[in-house]
């Protein structure tokens, strides 16, 4: 019984989110449409409560619950806190957009919370089944969220594509897991690592399993050659959902990559390093080159995401603590930048107008100098120009990769960063050098303007003082992986 209490205590944040998501579904049945803001408030409260519980139960050590199915460590806690923060910001940004498109409904908030529950389970999964369960919960919620705007054919198409390819990727991941299970006889991450060390690295079945696992993970990240879904889904989904897909789930994807590759399959590092290297280089090259040709802002950001994932893989493929910590820093920076970037699209959009074309940004400096400045910071941050957080993100992963001996890959990545700078600069050009074509005043709720400003300024401020976030990332990786 004591054991059960201990288990429950470890999953308190998850339980909170689960109960509240179901409660919201119930409340929504009995509430009048004009009082829906209550639901919004409940969702924000849930995130806050989960954050409090996660913070309260935080210890520096690593503890396992449910017979090793579930792990509670610093890495998980940090990632979860970041997930709550990201989700909370996302909810602020999307409220008006949802209202204007008649999508301000209880199911939206319940679905977001369920998807977040999936992410939390992924983050804390210490068993391949737990990880897979979390992943499927997240994915199913995201599929249906993409199609949330039922009458929008593009969104439905995107949802269909996402679902078919996503199911395929889940299948691959599961297949890989089954091979690894077949060889090691265990689903538990820590036991797998021990077993592989006993079996030795050169087992063909294990390598095959590894290939499928890596392919599945790459799909979830959107790394080349598994990137096909990213541009279509980003463009087709309502911007509020794109914001969700593009931001916080990357934390969860990062977590399961760390659990599977850096913990479970670490003895096979030499093999997955090569795979990640190829995917990283391809992602950076194809992502950056394709982004140049885009005219749709959401699609451009999708390709930019692909190239960011390439940089993220640079840190992971270093296969040491320095590299993992730098990847964690990169993913945090990436999520902050993505939130700001899509947040700006949401700020500019209004009823019947999506603001998702590049040309919609024309002359933004004349319409709203403040909004233009926020977008300017975001773009230079994505391009990796100091003094923004994006620079340190690139710097940390590149130095980790250099340390691990990937000299030429670093030089190539740096050259592609110049290509990348071009399309970010083009956005700045549109905002600052061109005359506006759209003269409608920008209306947004005050809380959204405030949070968006804070978000963009954070890119600059963390850029000036990156120490706190760097330490947090380094510490959580070191205490969790040693």
């Amino acid at each position: 019984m004591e054991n059960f209490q201990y288990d429950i205590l470890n999953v308190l944040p998850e339980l909170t989110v689960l109960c509240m998501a179901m409660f919201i579904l119930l409340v929504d049945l009995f509430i009048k449409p004009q009082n829906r803001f209550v639901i919004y408030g409940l969702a924000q409260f849930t995130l806050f409560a989960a954050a409090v519980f996660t913070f309260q139960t935080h210890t520096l050590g690593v503890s396992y619950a449910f017979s090793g199915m579930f792990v509670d460590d610093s890495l998980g806690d940090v990632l979860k806190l970041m997930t709550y923060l990201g989700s909370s910001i996302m909810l602020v940004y999307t409220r008006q957009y949802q209202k204007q498109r008649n999508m301000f409904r209880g199911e939206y908030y319940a679905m977001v919370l369920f998807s977040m529950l999936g992410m939390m389970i992924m983050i804390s999964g210490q068993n391949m089944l737990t990880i897979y369960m979390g992943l499927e919960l997240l994915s199913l919620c995201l599929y249906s969220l993409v199609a949330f705007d039922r009458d929008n054919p593009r969104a439905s198409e995107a949802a269909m594509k996402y679902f078919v390819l996503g199911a395929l990727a889940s299948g691959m991941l599961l297949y890989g897991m089954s091979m690894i299970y077949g060889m090691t006889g265990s689903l538990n991450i820590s036991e797998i690592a021990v077993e592989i060390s006993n079996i030795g690295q050169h087992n063909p079945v294990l390598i095959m399993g590894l290939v499928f696992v890596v392919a599945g993970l790459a799909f979830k990240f959107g790394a080349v050659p598994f990137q096909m879904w990213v541009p279509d889904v980003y463009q087709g989904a309502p911007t509020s959902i794109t914001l969700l897909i593009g931001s916080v789930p990357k934390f969860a994807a990062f977590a399961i990559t760390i659990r599977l590759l850096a913990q479970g399959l670490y003895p096979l590092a030499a093999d997955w390093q090569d795979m990640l290297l190829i995917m990283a280089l391809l992602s950076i090259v194809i992502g950056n080159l394709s982004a140049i040709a885009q005219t749709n802002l959401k699609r451009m950001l999708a390709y930019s995401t692909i190239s960011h994932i390439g940089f993220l893989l640079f840190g992971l493929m270093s296969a040491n603590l320095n590299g993992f910590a730098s990847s964690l820093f990169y993913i945090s920076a990436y999520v902050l930048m993505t939130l700001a970037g899509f947040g700006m699209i949401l700020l500019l959009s209004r009823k019947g107008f999506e603001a998702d074309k590049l040309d919609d940004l024309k002359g933004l400096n004349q319409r709203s100098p403040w909004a233009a400045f926020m977008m300017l910071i975001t773009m230079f941050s994505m391009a990796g120009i100091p003094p923004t957080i994006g620079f340190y993100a690139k710097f940390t992963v590149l130095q980790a990769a250099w340390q691990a001996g990937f000299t030429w890959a670093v030089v190539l990545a740096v050259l592609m960063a110049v290509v990348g700078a071009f399309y970010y600069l083009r956005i700045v050009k549109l905002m600052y050098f061109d005359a506006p074509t759209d003269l409608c005043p920008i209306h947004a709720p005050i809380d959204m303007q405030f949070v968006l400003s804070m978000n963009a300024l954070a890119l600059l401020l963390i850029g000036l003082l990156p120490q706190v976030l760097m330490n947090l990332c380094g510490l959580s990786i070191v205490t969790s992986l040693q």
Partner: protein
Amino acid sequence: MNLFNQHILSFAIWLPILAGVIVLLLGSDQNANRTRWVALVGAVISFLVTIPLYTGFQLQIGTFQFEESASWIPAFNIYYHLGADGFSVPLILLTSFTTVLVVIAAWEVITKSIAQYMAAFLIMSGLMIGVFSALDAILYYVFWEAMLIPMFLVIGIWGGPNRVYATIKFFLYTLLGSLLMLVAFIYLYHQTGSFALTDYYALPISMSAQIWIFIAFFMAFAVKIPMWPVHTWLPDAHVEAPTGGSVVLAAIALKLGGYSFLRFAMPIAPDAAHYFANTMITLSLIAIVYIALVALVQKDMKKLIAYSSISHMGFVTLGFFMFSQLGLEGAVVQMISHGFISSAMFLCVGVLYDRMHSRQIADYGGVVNTMPIFAAFAVLFAMANSGLPGTSGFVGEFMVILAAVKFNFWVAFLAATTLIFGAAYTLWMTKRVFYGAIANTHVAELTDINAREFIILATLALLVIGFGVYPEPITALLQATSAEFLTHMQTTKIPIISSVPAASI
């Protein structure tokens, strides 16, 4: 006061940036005059705080002075470490001084988004002073790159018709070089475990590594100077930039590259610097001679001055790579003097452009008849640009040529041709623009310079003649530092191969 004395460099960097932010917050196009005055006050204060760097400088010390150091990013052993020596102090003063000029020069000329314009220059000034005083590689890199952002906006927003092409070209060219420099820093970091410049100076590096490091730095700095053949962004950027942008580009931004050779590329990889010396001298001579010939055929005044800048910067790199004290000091003097003269030349073109909205030489003729006072200044600066003795343009070039004679007669011979070509392109342009009969009705309607323009040009004229007659204030600053620098450059950094018997490996 004590706080100020211990943090002069920090004040010099952050005051203009703070002033820029204040201008952004307070200024607007409706309150144009308030915006201008706030900017001017900010620029003047920022200039005044740099003066103690000159008065407090100890001439006999060749290493860094006014040092400040604080831990910034302990995770990577990165420090907020500032310091200045004889090379950087004159450049810092030049930067803060030029910013004042730019603010005054923009007074009535810029009417669109005044606050953003002024703020961009103030912030840029702080960032460039940061580049000149950073002693930590990452701190330096942050300032170096951050400076691109305001410059990108200045050219893009207030520039000429082809501004978008020019500014994006400028940005990407510079970024490419800078990122390779970042890779070199990452390499050095993994060798020393720190980003401190002094650690890099002391680090023994093998010859092959030094060559790679030097190439990476070369990519970054040669673009900025710019050296032939990576100079093509400069004429585009200059022509499209507003007057203030051209002035800052020519007077300071180009010096960032020259200074960085002295601060990074050469002392970190001295053996590679000697190894590449002949290549660098050849490239410098090509810039001096070939680019001067290119300048001769320009039809656009700004483009002509831009090419003339490249040609004059050739002297700077030539002076560096002869490794003699005279050449080195001559090169630094040339950087300062070029800062004054090129600012003055661009401001003169600005004066004409504001009235006629044309930079084509062919549109002018006989300007002296309608603008006598202005013409007097313009001819003086043209003389200085062609290296007339008694102007500051002569001092640096003469020192470098003297050093070259000792180094190799033919190098000196080719370098000296610039005195002919320089005179040819500058004076020919002056003749076509200022002398002769009044070319057209537009020229006939020109009005002479107003008090504001007079003050700017007169100040610069005083400086150009002053340093031409008495260059001692600059050269005195340089002596100890350049002696220290040359001593460092003469010691090899190639590690002595340890005598471990082959069998034990």
